[in-house]
C-alpha cells in the first residue's frame, strides 16, 4: 500500500435505522495511516454511528467502507477475527466497559483466547504493555471495583493494544475526566500512537482537546460531514457556518482570546424528518433562499478541505 492511499476510506456511506432515521447520510471521509483524525459534532450528529461502522459493528445501508484498501464488508465476511484485530475501539465509560465479575487479568486474556493468539507470546506482550502504561503487575488479580478510574482507563487502552491494532477508535476518551488528569491520558495515547505507528479516530466534544491533539478534524451535523480540514486551518478559518458557530461557543479563559459567540437559534432538528435543502439552513445565520431548496454537496475547497455549503466562509466569527 502506498503512502498516499488512505488506511480508512468512507465513500458515500449512509446508515438508516428502521427505514426512517438517517443516522449517517452520504459520508465520505479518508483517514491516512498514522494520522490523528478528530471528529466533532453535537449529540445525534452521527459520531458514534460513524465509529461503529468503522470498526464493523454496524453495517452501512449504502456506500462502502474500505480498510487498508479492502472493503470492510468483504473482510468481515471472509475473516471476521482478522479484521477485528486491525481496528479496536476505546469505549467512553472505562469502568462500565470492564466486567465486574472478571479479574482484570481474565478481561485482558479474553481477547487472546478468542483470537487464538500464541499464548506465551501474547502474555509477554501484555506484560510489556502493562509496564509501559505504568500499571503494577498485581493489577491483574484485582476486580474492576478495586482499581481507580484512571487505572480502568489504562486497562481499556491495554485491552485495545494487546491485539496490535492498526487503528484505534476512541469515543470521548476524556469525557468525565478532570482537567488535571486529562493531559496524562492524552499524552499516553499520543506516545503510543508514535511508538506503534497507530492511526486514531478521536471523538470529543471538547474542542480544546481536538485542537491540541488532532491533525485533521471532521465536523458532523445531522448525520453528515459538513466540513473536514487540517485542524489548524479549521480553527483558524472555519468555512462552514456551523463550524464557525461551534468553534465560537468555546469559552476561553484568556479575555484576549475570547470571541463573541455566534449563538444559533433552536436545536438540532430530528433526523427522522430532516430539513429540506441544506440540513443546517434552519439554524444558519447566513442562509439564503437556495439553501432551503438545494442540498449542497461535499466539495473540495482548496487543499485538503471539504465543505458542504453553498456559501463557504460567509460567516466570519471575527467580524460577527
Amino acid at each position, binding site marked *: 500500500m502506498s503512502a498516499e492511499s488512505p488506511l480508512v476510506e468512507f465513500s458515500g456511506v449512509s446508515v438508516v435505522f428502521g427505514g426512517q432515521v438517517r443516522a449517517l447520510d452520504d459520508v465520505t471521509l479518508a483517514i491516512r495511516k498514522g494520522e490523528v483524525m478528530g471528529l466533532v459534532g453535537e449529540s445525534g450528529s452521527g459520531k458514534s454511528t460513524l465509529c461503529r461502522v468503522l470498526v464493523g459493528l454496524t453495517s452501512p445501508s449504502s456506500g462502502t467502507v474500505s480498510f487498508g484498501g479492502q472493503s470492510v464488508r468483504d473482510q468481515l465476511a471472509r475473516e471476521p477475527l482478522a479484521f477485528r484485530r486491525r481496528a479496536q475501539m476505546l469505549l467512553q465509560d472505562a469502568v462500565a466497559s470492564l466486567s465486574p465479575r472478571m479479574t482484570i487479568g481474565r478481561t485482558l486474556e479474553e481477547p487472546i483466547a478468542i483470537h487464538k493468539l500464541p499464548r506465551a507470546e501474547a502474555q509477554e506482550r501484555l506484560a510489556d504493555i502493562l509496564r509501559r502504561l505504568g500499571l503494577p503487575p498485581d493489577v491483574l488479580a484485582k476486580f474492576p471495583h478495586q482499581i*481507580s478510574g484512571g487505572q480502568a482507563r489504562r486497562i481499556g487502552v491495554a485491552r485495545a493494544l494487546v491485539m496490535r491494532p492498526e487503528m484505534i477508535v476512541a469515543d470521548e476518551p476524556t469525557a468525565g475526566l478532570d482537567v*488535571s488528569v486529562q493531559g496524562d491520558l492524552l499524552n499516553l495515547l499520543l506516545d503510543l500512537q508514535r511508538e506503534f505507528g497507530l492511526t486514531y479516530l478521536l471523538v470529543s466534544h471538547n474542542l480544546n482537546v481536538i485542537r491540541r491533539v488532532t491533525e485533521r478534524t471532521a465536523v458532523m451535523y445531522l448525520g453528515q460531514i459538513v466540513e473536514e480540514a487540517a485542524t489548524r486551518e479549521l480553527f483558524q478559518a472555519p468555512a462552514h457556518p456551523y463550524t464557525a458557530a461551534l468553534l465560537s461557543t468555546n469559552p476561553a479563559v484568556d*479575555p484576549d482570546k475570547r470571541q463573541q459567540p455566534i449563538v444559533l437559534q433552536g436545536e438540532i432538528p430530528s433526523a427522522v424528518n430532516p430539513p429540506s435543502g441544506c440540513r443546517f439552513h434552519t439554524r444558519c445565520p447566513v442562509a439564503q433562499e437556495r439553501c432551503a431548496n438545494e442540498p449542497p454537496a461535499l466539495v473540495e475547497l482548496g487543499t485538503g478541505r471539504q465543505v458542504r455549503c453553498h456559501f463557504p466562509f460567509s460567516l466570519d466569527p471575527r467580524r460577527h
Partner: protein
Amino acid sequence: MTPPLVSIRKLVLEVSTARGTARILRGIDLDIGRGRIAGVVGESGSGKSSLAACLLRLLPANLSRIDGEIVFDGTDLLALDDTAMNAYRGTRIAMIFQDPMTALNPLFTIGAHLIDVLRRRHPGLARKAGTARAIAALRSVGIADAPLRLSSYPHQLSGGMRQRVMIAMALLVEPDLLVADEPTTALDATVEAQIVALFTDLRRGFAGSIVFISHHLGLVAELCDDLCVMYGGTIVETGPVAEVLAQPRHPYTRALLACELDHDAAGDRLVSIPGEVPDPVAEHVACVFAPRCQHAADACRQSVPELRDAGPGRRAACLRWEELA
C-alpha cells in the same frame, strides 16, 4: 460598604461512610456579594456541589456533622428549624440543577410546574394572573409558542428547552439568591452557548445574587464577577474573576489554568497535575495541595494554611503566595 448577601463562616460538613468519616467541607469561609455572580470551580470531589446544596440546606442522608454559619441576609440558615428553613426555599433562595430531566416531574405539565412555583411565592394568586405570568416567564427565557408549551409535558421538550423551563421557574420566584449547579454541563455546545447567553441577558433584569457552580474555567471566566476555587473540601483562592485568572495567587489555581488547553501549542506535552486528589477520609494536618504542589516547602507540610488576604478583594490559602507571585 453594604454587607454581603451571604456570609459563610467555618462551614464544616461531614458524612459517615463505610471507610469512616468523610470530610466533605473542611471549614469554608466565603462571602457572596449582593447582585454579584460568584463562580465556584473545582474538580470532582472538591466539595463544590455540596457547598451549593448547603446554601439551601439540602443535606445528605448520611450526614454526621454540620457546623459553622451560613448567614443569609442576617439570618443563620443552619440555626433555623426545618419549617423556618423551608420558608426560604423556593422563595428567597432558588436552585437550578444540572440535569433538567430529573428535576422536572414527568407527570406534570410545564404550566403546572410554573404555576406551582408562583403560588408558593404568592399565595392566593388568581389563576388567570398566574397563567399570564407563566407565559411571560417562558417568553423571557426565549421559548417560542409559550402558551402552547404550558400544556406540554417535560418529555416533549428538548434538553435545552427543559433547562430554559428550569431557569424560568427559578426566575419566577424572584429569589435573592439563585444557586445554579452546573446548569449547562448536560447540554450540547451550541445549546450551552444559548443558555450562557440567556444568563448574560437575564442578569440585567435580575437584582439578586447568583452562585454558579462549574468545572469549566472558561465558562466561569466569561460569566462571573467573582471566583472561588475549591480543592479537597476547602477554598484555596477567591477574588474578582479577571484578576484571579490573570494573576493566580494559589499554586493550584495556577496549575488548573496550565491544564486548560485553550492555547495553541501544538507539539508540546499536555500539562497535568501529578498525584491524586486528597482522600476525604484523611484528616488535614498540612496544606491540602502540598502533596501535588511543586512549590511545597517544609512549612507547607506542617500546618494548614489560612485563607488570608492576597491583595484588594482577594484571598488565598497559601503560605508562600508573596514569594511565588
